[in-house]
């Protein structure tokens, strides 16, 4: 075997820092599943304490890879008697990605009158859902009114 080619054990040693870093990041990511991530820092305003609450969706993935290879190099003209040089190469790489989506859900308000939970209503999201539903219904109606595109059982 060529001196420069790597054994699987050596490849694993090379990968260890990358895998360790990915694992550390993964552990930190998993720590986000806590109450502190969902409820914000309480805000005191005179007699009232306000605690914001949000829904958090987070995803993350990593990948690491390593490869090595060797190959003979053809001897040059006039150097036929010499031992042909062996080619070798190795490389490694890694990558990862993640996304965090947060959306306010409610606000906890604690005042001298008592504690209550006020919902946060996102009208834009509801309107978009309504538009999608209305679009779906209009599409279905148009399709049924057109004899060529109507459903097979509904053809006249």
């Amino acid at each position, binding site marked *: 075997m060529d001196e420069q080619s790597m054994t699987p054990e050596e490849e694993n040693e090379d990968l260890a820092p990358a895998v360790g870093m990915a694992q550390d990041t993964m552990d930190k990511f998993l720590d986000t599943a806590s109450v502190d991530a*969902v409820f914000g820092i309480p805000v005191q305003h005179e007699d009232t304490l306000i605690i914001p609450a949000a829904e*958090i969706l987070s995803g993350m993935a990593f990948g690491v890879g390593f490869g090595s290879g060797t190959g003979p190099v053809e001897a040059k003209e006039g150097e036929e008697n010499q031992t042909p040089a062996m080619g070798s190469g190795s490389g490694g790489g890694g990558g990862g990605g993640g996304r965090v989506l947060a959306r306010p*859900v409610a606000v906890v308000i604690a005042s001298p009158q008592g*504690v209550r939970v006020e919902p946060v209503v996102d009208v834009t999201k509801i309107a978009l*859902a309504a538009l999608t539903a209305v679009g779906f219904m209009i599409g279905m109606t148009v399709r049924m009114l057109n004899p060529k595109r109507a459903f097979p059982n509904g053809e006249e």
Partner: protein
Amino acid sequence: MKILHLETQTGEPIQAGENTITLVSQSVRLQPPGFPGGLIWNRPVAVRVQTGSEPEKTLPVRDVTRLAQLLVVGLGLVGGLFTILAWKMTSKERK
């Protein structure tokens, strides 16, 4: 090894005047074994309130936006299905 983990977490009690507030959240963790990654969904669930010597009250945290979205999309689907059924019934009658 479990792929899906469902956990309920309780925070440290917060003192607000006479009230002691304890925040409760729930997390759903999707982590396939051997896969270097995962998905976590965190959401607030409830607020526990202790006022003086009164019994503890639990106030649910309702996601009104999500409920409204599901309701609207559900109504759209039901409306669409109803339209298809009505169309099929009228076309059979015409035959």
